[in-house]
């Protein structure tokens, strides 16, 4: 095939700022062979056009359809330094300084090109796993130190071991792709950009635990991910990677996509299982744990997409290679997502241990508005708001917990100094009221009372009494809720008040600003167990 190869992402974020129109304009140019890759995760540069040259793939950021004829005339197709050219994309500091494991192929290849997948290291983990005893595959993952990337941080290998040892007529593997947390989009970008990595990770899991059926639960807000995954699954079946006797082995595994229906709570693993069973997505009480009694009461592995996406590399290169990265009990890489009011938002996959400041001010480049940073919310709508003074905390499950925050799914949302933190605290309660499944009272009723109480505080009505009431309410929700939705909603509320009391008309340093109950150690322990046992993506 002749012509200059030109990549234009078909990732839905790139498309939201005009990538399809840019692709159409490039197709009008003579000598262009258009390819549609996923996004490199440099979302600040989208639509990012890459031209293949002898030097490598040369990047042109923020191209619009109207720019195309001019750029071509100025020599874009030969890699000329025009239009804010980024040079060779892989050598650009923003990418070159990352350590991409799960995202190694995203943005590089066409998402459903199974040949390119194999040429870029795909299936190596699966082939090694299939040559191993299932128990040894599980131990390899235990060795890697991989912890659940959905937010709970539970050791993946330990979960798998439980499922492997369970006796049942059928076992399931379920991928939680109900990525509902604001500020997180890594699951979507990977599903749209490199779906075979997920399929490979789930196949390895199935072999390790003895499962024969799998489901990918995707939220309905991700229509492009649904289409891409379904296409990839069809192709994998056609090439003998799904179905009976996978690649001539004794493994049989059937996989299908199931679509959610607009309920945030279905990112909580037991709600997701009920939803997969065709029921209301209500949280289940534990025990029993899903590893023993999950989907349709059978032993079930439920992992986040990013957990599965780490598995192929762990099997290909060995658990120790993965464990060699990271810090403390947080091993390997974390896929960080920079979002909100940020100059260079996107995906940064780096070893655990990097500081929040390096991410937000280094990679992120501060606010998009150019105004001073006021706060960042880490780990989704149930995560804490940090004060910039805390930004030197490293990305590490334990270090963040100590700082009163959490890794969550790795999302961080930056805000400039115009944000009203009392308004954000109210929104946290409002969101919980809108999305609570309704099963337990602290969450269902507490969130509604929380909105009302914060409204009274903001309105200056009995401020002192209502702050005490809010403290009591937050303690009840934290300790009494069935899952992380109600249990963690107080986190953004209390952190907003603690770090930004002036937004609540409370004097800095006042006791009223610190809602942490007096038995704080106890609370910390409760929160930690809430996070580690009840994952919400």
């Amino acid at each position, binding site marked *: 095939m002749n012509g200059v190869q030109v990549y234009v992402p078909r990732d*839905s*974020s790139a*498309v*939201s*700022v005009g990538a399809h129109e840019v692709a159409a304009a490039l197709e009008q140019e003579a000598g262009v062979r258009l390819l549609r890759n996923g996004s490199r995760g440099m*979302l*600040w540069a*989208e639509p990012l056009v890459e031209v293949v040259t002898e030097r490598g793939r040369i990047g042109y950021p923020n191209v619009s359809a109207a720019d195309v004829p001019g750029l071509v005339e100025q020599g874009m197709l030969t890699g000329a330094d025009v239009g804010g050219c980024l040079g060779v994309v892989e050598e650009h500091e923003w990418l070159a300084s990352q350590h991409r494991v799960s995202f190694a192929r995203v943005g590089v290849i066409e998402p459903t090109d199974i040949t390119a997948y194999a040429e870029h290291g795909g299936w190596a983990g699966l082939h090694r796993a299939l040559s191993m005893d299932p128990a040894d595959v599980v131990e390899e993952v235990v060795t890697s130190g991989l912890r659940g990337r959905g937010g709970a941080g539970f050791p993946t290998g330990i979960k798998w071991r439980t499922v492997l040892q369970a006796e049942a007529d059928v076992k399931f593997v379920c991928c939680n792709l109900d*990525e*509902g*947390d*604001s*500020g*997180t*989009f890594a*699951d*979507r*970008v990977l599903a749209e950009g490199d779906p075979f990595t997920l399929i490979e990770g789930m196949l390895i899991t199935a072999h390790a635990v003895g499962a024969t059926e799998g489901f990918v639960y995707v939220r*309905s*807000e*991700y*229509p492009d991910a649904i289409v891409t995954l379904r296409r990839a699954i069809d192709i994998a079946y056609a090439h003998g990677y799904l179905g009976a006797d996978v690649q001539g082995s004794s493994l049989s595994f059937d996989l299908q996509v*199931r*679509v*959610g*229906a*607009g*309920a*945030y709570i279905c990112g909580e693993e037991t709600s997701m299982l009920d*939803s*997969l*069973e*065709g*029921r*209301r*997505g*209500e949280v289940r009480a534990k025990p029993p744990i899903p590893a023993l009694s999950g989907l*349709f009461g059978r032993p079930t592995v439920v992992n986040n997409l990013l957990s599965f996406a780490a598995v192929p590399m762990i099997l290909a290169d060995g658990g120790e290679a993965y464990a060699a990265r990271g810090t403390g009990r947080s091993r390997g890489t974390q896929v960080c*997502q*920079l*979002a*909100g*009011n*940020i100059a260079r*938002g*996107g995906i940064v996959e780096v070893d655990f241990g990097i500081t929040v400041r390096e991410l937000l001010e280094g990679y992120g480049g501060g606010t*998009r508005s150019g105004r001073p940073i006021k706060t960042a*919310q880490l780990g989704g*709508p149930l995560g804490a708001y940090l004060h910039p003074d805390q930004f030197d905390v490293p990305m590490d499950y334990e270090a963040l917990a100590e700082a009163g925050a959490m890794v969550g799914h790795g*999302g961080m*949302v*930056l*805000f*400039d100094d115009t*944000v009203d933190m009392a308004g*954000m605290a109210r*929104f946290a309660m409002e*969101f919980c009221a*809108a*999305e609570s499944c309704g099963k337990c009272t602290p969450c269902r009723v507490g969130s509604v009372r929380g909105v009302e109480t914060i409204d009274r505080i903001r309105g200056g009505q009995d401020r002192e009494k209502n702050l005490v009431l809010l403290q009591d309410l937050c303690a009840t929700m934290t300790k009494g809720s069935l899952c992380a939705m109600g249990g963690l909603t107080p986190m953004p509320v209390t952190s907003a008040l603690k770090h930004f009391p002036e937004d609540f008309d409370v004097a800095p340093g006042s006791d009223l600003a610190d809602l942490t109950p007096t038995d704080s150690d106890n609370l910390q322990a409760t929160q930690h167990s809430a996070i580690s046992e009840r994952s919400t993506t």
Partner: protein
Amino acid sequence: MSAQIDATTRAHTVRAITQGYARERGPLLLVLHAVQAELGHIDDADIPAIADVLNLSVAEVHGVVSFYKDFRTEPPAAHVVQVCRAEACQALGAQPLFAAATEAASARNGVEVEEIFCFGNCALGPTVSLDGRLHGRVDEARLSELMGQWA
């Protein structure tokens, strides 16, 4: 989506769709998505038919329809604007944008506005979807331009 079909045809269609998924594990959400995709909404009259084919109670099916925000029990407007109101888009002005969309929609017929909590486009917000097409970096002027295409 068919605008008007008679009750008998509708009931027949709903049963046929439901039967197509009846052998799947936990098929109810699959069925409801398919009925809505084909007929635009899930009518009260569809629920007993679905329950009958799947051997569920009417209450169980009704409970699922009412639990999930995606399932609508009325036909949709001609045009739907979905505005993300989650934190990352709020950091870039999603709240006033949502208010502007609501006001613009109230001034014309056949447009409805929905709030959405996250499209996963959090690095390029504020994000709006118009009739299923995602747009990033939308300010009030851009929203007005996009909605103007429906004039």
